[in-house]
Each structure stands twice: as structure tokens, then as C-alpha cells.
């Protein structure tokens, strides 16, 4: 069975500091990994996906198959990055459903 683990429920950093949100997954095949974000009073939305290899709002995520991790990183956090972040995976050839982690609440302090 697929599982996504986000070990930090809460993460607090100061503006301008680097931030890393951890995500580990378990799946025997080759999953596709995503980060979704929910800003205050807004809908859950896609932040970035591994397959696109892109950087969104300064965030990047590297898939490490050896460590089964997909950590989200940003070198200089901004106050507007404060939000709930969810790591998710979907399986190749499957029903395309997303399996989510429990989420990490990021607070960027001024």
C-alpha cells in the first residue's frame, strides 16, 4: 500500500531563512510525487510536481529514490509562504488518485 509521511506537523522559520519541509513515501513501484499547498481561506492547489522539474514561487523538490523522499525546499522564506503544505503521490498506471500526507503547517515569522 502507498503511504506518505510528513514528520513535522508544525514548522516555524524567520523571513529570509531557508526552509525544508520533509516528505517520505513508501510504494513498491515508481510513484509520481506532488506538493499541494493551502493558503489561509483558499483552496487546496498544486504547488509543484516532480515530473515537471520546475521551480514554483522559489520552491524546489528533489526526488531521492534511494531515501524515498521528496523534500520541499526554499532558500529564503517569505511571509506569504505561510500555509499548509501537503505531500502527495499517485501511482503509475493506477486510478490517478492522490495519496496525501498529513500535512505540515509552515509559519514564516517577520
Amino acid at each position: 500500500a502507498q503511504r506518505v509521511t510528513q514528520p513535522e506537523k508544525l514548522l516555524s522559520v524567520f523571513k529570509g531563512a531557508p526552509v525544508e519541509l520533509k516528505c517520505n513515501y513508501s510504494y513498491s513501484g515508481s510513484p509520481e510525487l506532488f506538493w499541494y499547498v493551502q493558503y489561509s481561506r483558499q483552496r487546496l492547489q498544486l504547488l509543484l510536481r516532480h515530473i515537471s522539474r520546475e521551480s514554483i514561487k522559489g520552491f524546489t523538490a528533489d526526488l531521492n529514490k534511494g531515501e524515498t523522499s521528496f523534500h520541499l525546499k526554499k532558500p529564503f522564506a517569505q511571509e506569504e509562504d505561510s500555509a499548509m503544505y501537503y505531500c502527495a503521490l499517485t501511482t503509475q498506471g493506477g486510478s490517478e488518485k492522490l495519496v496525501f500526507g498529513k500535512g505540515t503547517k509552515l509559519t514564516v515569522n517577520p
Partner: protein
Amino acid sequence: EAEVAQSPRYKITEKSQAVAFWCDPISGHATLYWYRQILGQGPELLVQFQDESVVDDSQLPKDRFSAERLKGVDSTLKIQPAELGDSAMYLCASSLGQTYNEQFFGPGTRLTVL
């Protein structure tokens, strides 16, 4: 910009009552998902439709939950009878349905069962 619509936004009901939630996906999106999000958890898939057909309902408690997407457009999720443990956020999402396509989420329906 097209968005997924859901109604109602909030629903308070007593246990043993019936409740229904409605979702209107983005036009042209073949795949529709219903997720349940319990407080402090990530969303968990309840049911997935491809057009009007159910693709995955393995986590849907079928003794009390039902879902339909009769014309392959909008969808209804029903709970009868509601139980205290059903209190949660119910999220609808849609996608074009192609491999690894982005899912667009609605605002959700917050259900409270008393």
C-alpha cells in the same frame, strides 16, 4: 477562471439524518474525485469517477455513503444515516483525467454531525 463549485459550504446535522453534497467540476474535466479530510489529516479519496463510471470506491463506506455522476458532469455524495464520526471536510476535485494531470479542488463542504 473556471473553478470547481461545491455546495453547501457548511452543513450541520444530527446523527441518523441524511445529508447530500453537490459538486460541479470544471467544464470538460472527465475525472471527478470526492475526498474526505478529517481534522489534522490529509485528504483521503472516497470515490473517483471517469465520466459517469466509478473507477475507485474502495474507501467508500458503502453501507451509508453513495455517490453518483449521472450525466458525467456534476456529482452528488450522500450519507444516510450520518454518524458522529462523519464530521469532516468533504472535498471535490476534478481533472482532465490524463496521466498525472493536475487536480483542481473545490472549497469543500464542512460537515458537523451532532
